């Protein structure tokens, strides 16, 4: 068969490792969206003493590369300390799989992003940040770059669905160029809240829709 995939990738696509959910996960993260056709959800269980990843599971909606890269990333991260796992890059996943076709590299990026976000969420929620920098507008906007507007298929920042952000006294206000009664409004609201609320000093996230 001359498909542009390695044997290893095909093997992991058919028999992925670490599939599933961890109901009492210490941290989780979701990257991508069904609109993009690629979505990875990652669950972490971390030893509070050693800060080692004792269990990691994933769920994936996407192509074969998406499933295989998520599988390989969980294998690379399992048993590592959070600091070690942070150093895993998409290139490591790509190398493990024997090289992805260029159009599929974003799958590896997505899976590694999910790992990094899950670790970051863990650190925010467990007081592990080295310097507790107050969350700025920029930090919020950077996180929102990972939220995809399903109507446009691109993120809310690039797609200009995001109008403005205000951060004050632990409340993040997210203003959108979108009416509340529009299709996907609720879906986007949930994604935004899920993305911003893990930040260590954010107590509440408000999503404000426009009236126009």
């Amino acid at each position, binding site marked *: 068969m001359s498909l542009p995939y390695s044997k290893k990738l095909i093997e992991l696509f058919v028999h992925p490792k670490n599939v599933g959910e961890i109901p009492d996960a210490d941290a989780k993260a979701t990257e991508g969206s069904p609109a993009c056709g690629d979505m990875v959800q990652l669950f972490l269980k971390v030893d509070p003493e050693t800060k080692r990843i004792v269990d990691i599971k994933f*769920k994936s*909606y996407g192509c074969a590369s998406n499933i295989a890269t998520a599988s390989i990333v969980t294998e690379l991260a399992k048993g590592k300390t959070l600091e070690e796992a942070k150093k895993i890059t998409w290139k490591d996943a790509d190398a493990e799989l024997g090289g992805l076709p260029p159009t599929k590299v974003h799958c590896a990026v997505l899976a590694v992003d999910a790992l990094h976000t899950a670790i970051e969420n863990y650190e925010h929620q467990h007081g592990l940040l080295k310097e507790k920098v107050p969350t700025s507008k920029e930090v919020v906007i950077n996180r929102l770059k990972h939220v995809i507007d*399903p109507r446009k298929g691109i993120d809310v920042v690039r797609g200009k669905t995001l109008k403005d952000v205000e951060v004050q006294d632990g409340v993040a206000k997210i203003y959108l160029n979108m009416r509340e009664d529009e299709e996907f409004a609720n879906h986007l609201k949930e994604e935004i809240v899920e993305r911003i609320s893990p930040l260590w000093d954010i107590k509440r996230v408000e999503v404000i829709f426009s009236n126009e």
Partner: protein
Amino acid sequence: MNVYLDNASSTRVDERVVDAIMKTFYEDIALPTSEFVHTPGQRVKELVEESRKKIADFVGAESSEIVFTSGGTEANNLAIKGIAFAQAKKGKHIVTTAVEGRSILDSVRKLEKSGFRVEIIPVDRHGFIDLEALEKAVSSDTILVSVQMVNDEVGTIQPLREVVEIVKSKNPEAIVHTDATYGIGWIPFNVKELGVDLASFTAHKIYGPKGVGALYVKKGVTVEKQIDGGYAEFNLRGGTPNIHGIVGFAKAVEVVDWKEVEEVRKLRDYLYEQAILRIPEVILLGPSDFSKRHPANLNLSFKFVEGESVVLYLDMKGIAVISGSACFSRGLEPSYVIMAMGHSHETAHGSIRFSLSKYNTKEEMDYTVSVLEEVVKSLREISPLGGN
């Protein structure tokens, strides 16, 4: 078991067509460009003209109205660009639909850069052209309207007779073209009954060889030649005609058997019934009224899973299908046809096209459904979107 279900892309060649083509390699060695030179040339000329007659008869045209091309893409290019450049003085407005093939859409986009005004008519949820929008669009400036006969992705058969009536009542001078490449041999088609001015055909979707097609050009309609190089094909297409292909094309239309088409239709219906019976959460894409659907087409979107994964898995089990998923496409864009029908990205990503032929069997359909059931189930188990 190997099951080929990508016949809307291309079919296996019928044995009788192969035999007809093989003969030409040994017996018909000359070119038909000049009938006044020698006997071998004369012989080939006759062969080409016999073939032209068979194809013309099959679509209700005159022999002199059939121009052979290298396939559907060239026929579409000749139709769109040929009319635009020949009729540029009459007007600059070209109308087509959002679900045409790439050769139509890319051609009109190119013409837009040379000063033509292009209007794309939307389609409804089942892929049917918005006839009201068409009526509004056609004006005295309109020189060409191109509406496909049938969509190869979702199987929608367009109401061509109504299209012609609407266009001609608004502007009798406007030329109506139809891309019938996935239509002839599957659905009865007669240029005179429909009243179209131009129609594109190809051989390889009806058990003929790849690399040969034709354009019907109604008598009196002026088209500007796009490939220069001699006076072949009524001075509308330069170059050496594909003699072997032309003979094969003619044989393919000669052996069209409408009873076989009905058998394929039954098989397609069986595949659909079994699939929705055994797999939950499936969306049918294209007309739900199967009388307005291509007899060999089925397009299903499986919720919560992504199409490329399904295609790859099926391929490993010997089943060949395609998907409208972004991952499957070169441009990483979901199927523009399914998107134009107003479906979500997710529906497009989960879509799988099954296109059958007379070579498929009931056993193959059973096998396909069981593999499909298995793959959709296992992909839904790992999907964060649910389904299990």
